[in-house]
């Protein structure tokens, strides 16, 4: 998971050039242009309906963009399914509602993709899964089914499941929004640890403590565009845009 010193913060891993997306007639992304560097932790925030979830879902093409160019780790996002599959192998995703597979136990949830997609031998995949479960702090839950776990534990399994593919980028779509307050911290702790290990992370969240602590950059979304971006100190202490000030005053 660690990235060598030369590449940290040097190489552009995600490049967006004037990306547009419509849901029917609704223009949800209205020209997104940004660059995310390897090892960067980016927090995306903004009012609901601002396109922030749609934005990170276009990174692994769970949503298709209709205009503009997206390049992920040097691969252009086109209709070519081989490119999409290659990108998805290297981009892990964690969802608001966990989306663990309820018919598989924790171990199988984690080993499914490595064994089927990466063709890693089962024994090796299980060892990797145990390592990851230890990393997220719940090795004793390996044989349980998702429904037997608490929300926080489920989300940590979901993170382990995404990490099992040894991705270069991790996407988090409001990972703590569905959790009870006392479980938010256990998930944020895992994400903190992941950020300090050098993982490239794009996190949609309103956990401003997390943003202030680990984000390299914050992006304020509103009405389908990036209204303002910059390091946390700038966003929190000296926001340039009125809309950013207004939104932060509402949630802080």
């Amino acid at each position, binding site marked *: 998971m660690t990235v060598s010193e030369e590449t940290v913060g040097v190489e552009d891993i995600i490049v967006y050039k004037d990306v547009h997306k419509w849901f029917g007639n609704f223009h949800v992304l209205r020209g997104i242009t940004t660059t995310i560097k390897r090892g960067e932790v980016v927090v995306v925030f903004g009012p609901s309906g601002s396109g922030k979830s749609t934005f990170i879902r276009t990174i692994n093409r769970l949503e298709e963009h209709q205009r503009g160019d997206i390049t992920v780790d040097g691969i252009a996002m086109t209709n070519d399914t081989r490119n999409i599959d290659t990108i998805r192998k290297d981009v892990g995703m964690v969802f608001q509602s966990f989306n663990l597979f309820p018919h598989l136990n924790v171990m199988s949830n984690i080993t499914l993709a490595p064994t089927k997609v990466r063709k890693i031998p089962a024994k090796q995949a299980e060892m990797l899964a145990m390592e990851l479960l230890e990393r997220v702090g719940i090795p004793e839950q390996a044989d349980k089914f998702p*429904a037997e776990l608490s929300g926080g534990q489920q989300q940590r399994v979901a993170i382990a499941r995404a990490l099992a593919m040894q991705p270069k980028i991790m996407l988090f779509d409001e990972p703590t929004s569905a959790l009870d307050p006392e479980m938010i911290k256990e998930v944020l702790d895992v994400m903190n640890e992941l950020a300090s290990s050098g993982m490239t992370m794009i996190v949609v969240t309103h956990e401003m403590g997390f943003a202030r602590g680990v984000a390299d950059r914050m992006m304020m979304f509103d009405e389908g565009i990036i209204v303002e971006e910059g390091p946390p100190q700038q966003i929190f202490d000296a926001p340039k845009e009125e809309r950013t000030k207004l939104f932060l005053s509402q949630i802080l």
Partner: protein
Amino acid sequence: MSTDSRIITASVLPPPRSVGGIGGWIRVNLINTWYNIGLTTVFGFILVVALWYGLKWVFLDADWRVISTLGGRIIIGQYNVEAACPGRDCFWRPQAGLLLVTVLLGMAWSVSGGGLTKRIAVLFAGALVACAVLPYSLDKMGLDVRLLFAANVPALALGWVIARHTRLGTVSWIAVLAICTFLLILVLLRGIPGVPYLQPVSVLYWGGLTLNLLLAVAGIGLSLPIGIALALGRRSSLKVVNLVCVTFIESFRGVPLITLLFMSQVLVPLAFPENFPQNSLVRAAIVITLFSSAYMAENVRGGLQSLNPGQAEAARALGLPVWQTTLFISLPQALRNVIPAIVGQFISLFKDTSLVYIIGMLDVVEISRAFIQGNPEYLASAKEVFVFLAAVFWVFTFTMSHVSRRVEQHLGVGKR
């Protein structure tokens, strides 16, 4: 114990008495209001009267000798009549088929380690062994046939030992062997030209419960995979595939099975050359299977629609291609959600196999009816025959629904 801890600790109390015990249950459920007391009295009276006359008829009035007179015809129909099997020595072939099934059940018992599978295996073998000692009047029901029936006990043990001590004792091997056994039984019943003791027997003479079960097993085994394929096709974004599947499903669901069976006998032969081998059994099996597949497809589609789209999204985000997402994520959950509907369709299919009487095949109901009609001295015993047949069908369908509930429990339906 200090006073403080008594204040802090919430006390854990046992549940109130009134809900426990049989007396409590009766008080709560049967005689809790005047309205319920009235209902309990009325239905209690009806139940007592029905049980009294029902049991009296079953144990005292009914004359069950007709069942033993029917005998082997219940199992195999006219298979062993002179016209079907010159020399009338073919009865061992269905018997051997049953022995193979018993061996399989023995293996399943060993693999499952007891429980429901064990009970089914023992019940099946036990019923067959019971036939060995029942008074039969079927011609040719000699010592050899009785011994073949009795051989089901060693067959059960053989299956158990095979599964325990060889590499065949796994679920997947048993599934493979089950398919082989089914095909082997078909060959055994049909016969091979030129081989002694295996002279061909025309399918026109196949009948009885064997016919119902062969059609049901073929239909159940094939309609689920065909139905899954149709359901996936109906959800496909490819317009042609979608159109073909919708057309197939809607046309087979829109026509009564009886009509389809007639059409298979009258219309299908027109499509083939005159000397093309005509096999009404195969045609009936195909029609029943396709008819059931159309219903199965809609059951499976319902299951697929009940899934949270987040499941497929999570799988796709992990890099699983569409086919693996369907195979490992969507289908297992969809099928698990619609087990009751699928088993309902299986049960319906099994009962519908009786309808092949319409194209002149003597299934267990039709052969019994024909027997009564052809032997006026048994006309008075028609009641016993049909009550017996109802019981036979019920045992099979109840076993199916019982197994399905067990499977649901095992998979944790409604919990996970």
